[in-house]
C-alpha cells in the first residue's frame, strides 16, 4: 500500500506506532497473505510436485480466469452490490465468439474483431445490469440473478455441445510463454496494478467506495451515484468478457460449461480477500490474495487427491471462516 513513512523518520516511537496502525488498518491483507504463505509453505514441504517451479507457474496461470471475474466482482461488491451474472456473461461471450469462428471457417484474420466483439457484448450486458439496477432500484442480487437465468437460456440455445473451429492462433493467447512464465501472467500482473490504481487513485474508484459506504452521503458529496453504479456493472461485464475469451483460448473449443460455478468462487475470493460484502470497505489487493488462495487450495486438493465433494465442503468452510473473521461491527442504519 502506498503509505509513506518519511515524515516519521526522526523519532522511533511515532514510527513504530505508525507501523502498528498500518498493520491494523490492513489487517485483512496481512491475514490473507499470511494464510497463503502458511498453506503454500505446508504444501511445499509435504508435496514434491507442488514445489516444482512449473507447478508454481501453473498456479499463477490458473489464477487468471478467476482473477478476471473476481476483479469485476470486487468492483461491484465495493458499491454494495453483487453480480450473479458474471459466469453466464463469460459463457455467452465464449459461445458467441466460438460460433462465429466456426461459421467463418476458423479464419484467423477474425481474431481481433471477434475479441473486440466479445468485449462489446460483455460491456453491453454489464450496462444492462447497471441500468436495470439504477432504474428499478431493485436489489442487484435479484436483477443480476434474473439476467444470469436469461443468459443461461440464451447459452443453451446457442449450443449444448462443444463448438469446434477455433483458429490455432487464438489458443496462443493462453499458451504463449517466456521460459516457464506465461505471457498472460505478466499481462495479468499489469491488469491487477491498473485496477488497484483505478480503485484507489481515480474519482470513479473513490466513488465506488463512497457509494458502497452510503449512497445518500455519496450523493450529498457530489458523487454521481447512478453513473458510478452503471460503470461498476459495465466493468464487471468487461472483465467477464475477458474471462470468457480466456476460457475459450484455454479450452480450444466453445465449451457450454464455460465458467460454471465461477460466480460463487469469485464472491468467495472477494469475501476471503476482506472486501466487505456490505460494500465500501476493502482492497483489490485482498481480492488478489483471495484468488491466489483459492487457486492454491484447488491445486493442492488435486495434488493430494482430495475427493471433489470434500473440496466443496472445505471451500464452504473457508467462506464461513473468512466471513466470521472479517465481521465488522456495524451500526444498524434505518432507512
Amino acid at each position, binding site marked *: 500500500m502506498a503509505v509513506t513513512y518519511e515524515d516519521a523518520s526522526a523519532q522511533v516511537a511515532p514510527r513504530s506506532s505508525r507501523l502498528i496502525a498500518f498493520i491494523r488498518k490492513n489487517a485483512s491483507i496481512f491475514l490473507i497473505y499470511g494464510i497463503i504463505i502458511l498453506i503454500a509453505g505446508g504444501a511445499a514441504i509435504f508435496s514434491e510436485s507442488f514445489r516444482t517451479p512449473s507447478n508454481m507457474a501453473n498456479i499463477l496461470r490458473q489464477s487468471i480466469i478467476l482473477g478476471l471475474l473476481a476483479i469485476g466482482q470486487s468492483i461491484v461488491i465495493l458499491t454494495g452490490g453483487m453480480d450473479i451474472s458474471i459466469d453466464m456473461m463469460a459463457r455467452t461471450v465464449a459461445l458467441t465468439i466460438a460460433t462465429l469462428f466456426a461459421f467463418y471457417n476458423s479464419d484467423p484474420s477474425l481474431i481481433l474483431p471477434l475479441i473486440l466483439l466479445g468485449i462489446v457484448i460483455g460491456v453491453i450486458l454489464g450496462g444492462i445490469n447497471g441500468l436495470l439496477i439504477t432504474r428499478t432500484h431493485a436489489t442487484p442480487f435479484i436483477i443480476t440473478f434474473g439476467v444470469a437465468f436469461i443468459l443461461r437460456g440464451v447459452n443453451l440455445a446457442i449450443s449444448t455441445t462443444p463448438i469446434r473451429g477455433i483458429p490455432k492462433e487464438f489458443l496462443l493467447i493462453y499458451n504463449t510463454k517466456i521460459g516457464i512464465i506465461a505471457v498472460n501472467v505478466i499481462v495479468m500482473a499489469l491488469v491487477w496494478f491498473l485496477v488497484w490504481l483505478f480503485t484507489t487513485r481515480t474519482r470513479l474508484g473513490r466513488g465506488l467506495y463512497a457509494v458502497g459506504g*452510503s449512497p445518500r452521503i455519496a450523493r450529498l458529496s457530489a458523487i454521481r451515484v447512478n453513473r458510478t453504479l452503471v460503470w461498476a456493472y459495465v466493468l464487471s461485464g468487461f472483465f467477464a468478457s475477458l474471462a470468457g475469451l480466456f476460457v475459450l483460448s484455454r479450452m480450444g473449443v466453445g465449451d457450454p460449461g464455460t465458467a460454471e460455478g465461477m460466480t460463487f468462487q469469485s464472491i468467495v475470493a472477494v469475501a476471503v480477500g476482506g472486501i466487505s460484502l456490505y460494500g465500501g470497505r476493502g482492497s483489490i489487493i485482498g481480492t488478489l490474495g483471495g484468488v491466489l488462495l483459492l487457486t492454491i487450495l484447488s491445486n493442492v486438493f488435486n495434488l493430494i487427491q482430495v475427493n471433489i465433494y470434500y473440496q466443496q465442503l472445505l471451500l464452504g468452510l473457508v467462506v464461513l471462516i473468512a466471513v466470521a473473521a472479517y465481521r465488522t461491527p456495524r*451500526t444498524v442504519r434505518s432507512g
Partner: protein
Amino acid sequence: MEASSASNHSNNTILELSGIDKTFGGTHALADVSFDLRAGEIHALVGENGAGKSTLIKIITGAYFPDIGVIKIGDDSYSSLRPEQARNIGVSVVYQEFNILPELSVAENIFMGDQPRGRLQLIDMGTRNKKANELLKRLGAENTINPNDLVKNLTVGEQQLVEISKALATESHIIIMDEPSAVLPSRELERLFSVIRKLRSEGHGIIYISHRLNEVFELADRVTVLKDGQLMATKDVVDTNHAELVHLMVGRELTDMYPPADNQPEDTLLEVKDLDIDGTVFGVNLEVRTGEVLGLAGLGGSGRTTVCRALVGLADVQAGEITYLGKPAPKNAGAASQAGLVLVPEDRKTHGLVLNQSMRFNLSLPNLLQFVRNGVLRAGIEKEAIENMVEDIQVKPPNPEMLAESLSGGNQQKVVVGKWLLTNPKLVIFDEPTRGIDVGAKAEIYQRIRDLTYSGVGVIMASSELPELIGMSDRIMVFHEGRIAGELDRSEFSEEAIMHLATATNGNEDQPAKKVEV
C-alpha cells in the same frame, strides 16, 4: 376502570417521580426533577430540544435507569424500572415514529404482544377482531377503521389511533404521547384531541409532549416546563399564559460564544421566489447576500430542512424559482457544489460522513476533481490539501487516516464542515451545525462561520437552537408549518419573538412579536 369521577381534577395521583437525577458522561440530563400525574388528567410536558423531556419519558418507560430518585406508580415505589416491568404496570407510549407493522392488519397490530388464543392455542381471530372493534369504538373510530384493514392503507391519523388502541389493549392507565400532533395534518388534529379527552374522561392519566403551546392551552390541565434538565415549574394551565411558558422555556443569558457580528452583507447571492415543495413547503420567499448570515428558525418539520435541501437540488420542487448568482440554481448536488453552493447537512452520521472510511477519504470526497491530474488522483496533492485542512479545522487527533467513526461528535462535525470548505464555496448552508457537540467545538464552528462571511461567503444557518440563531444571524426567517411566519432583523431578535412566530400564536398581544427593543 378506576376513578370515574366526573371531575377532571381528581387528586388521585397514579405516577409520581421525585428527585430524579440522570447524567450522561459529563452532562446533567436531568437534575432533581419531580413530576406527577393524576388519574383523569392531561399533563403537558414542554421544553426546548435537549431540555430533558425525552430522558424523563425514558425513565418512566424503563429505557433509562435514573441515577438518583424514586418512581412511584400506584402504591409501589421503584428506584428504577425495566421496560417490560413498566409495560406490565400500565405505562405505554405513543411515539412519533409508530411502532406498528404496516403489512399486518389493524387487529393483528393491536394485539401484537398478546394475541387472544382459542382451542389448541391457536389465535382466535373472531375474538381478536371483536376485541379490536371494541377498542376502536372507545376511540370513536369503529366506523372508519376496520380491524381487518392493513395498517399501511390507513392515514397517519388512523395509524395513530391504532397505536393508541394498542396502548389500551395492554390496559395501560398511564399513556405518554410524544408530540402526537407533529405527524398529523391539521384536519386530523381535532379527532386526536377528542380521543385524548375521551381517554381522560375514562380516567387515564396522559402525559402530553408538544412544542405547540396553543395545544397545551387547548388540551392540558397542568403543564410542566423543563429547561436544561431542570424543572422550571409545574402549573395549572388556567393559572398561566403563553408568554410565561415561553419565558420559562427559553429564559437564559447569551454568552460570548459568538464572535462579534461585524460582517458586511453586500450583493444578492441567492434568491428564492414562491417556492412550493411536495406538500411540505408553501410559497417561501427568501434572499441571501454575500457576507451575510441568514438564520432559519422553526420547529421540527416546519420546512426548514426541506428548503435547505431544495437549494442544493435535493428536494422535489413543485413550483417557484431559485436564482443563484443571477442564474437558475443548479438542479443537483454535484452541479451545486461545483458552482460553490454547498449544504452541510444535519445529522452527520447519516448525511455527512462515510463512517467506516478515513478522515482523508471523507474530506476528499466532494473535492476529488481538485486532486486529479491527467485522470489520476495525485496522492501528493491530496495529502497536502488534506493535511492543511485538518490543521485548519483543528481536528483532534490530527491524523488523516483516522476512521471517521472513531472521532468524537464535535470532531466529526468539523470534518463535515472541512470537507465542504475545501470546495471553496460561495454560499454555505448549515443545517443544525452544532447539534450534539460540545461547547468548545461549537465556538470554533461559530468562529468558522463568521470567518466565512468576512471573505464574502453567504451563509444560511438553519437551527433549532435559538441562542445560536440570535448570536450568529443578521436576519432570521421563522418557519411555521411550511410557510414563513415572519422575518426578524437583528434589532428585533429575542427567543420569545422567534418562539411566538414558530408556534404561531398570532394575535397574542401580551408579547408582541415585532419591535422588541434589545
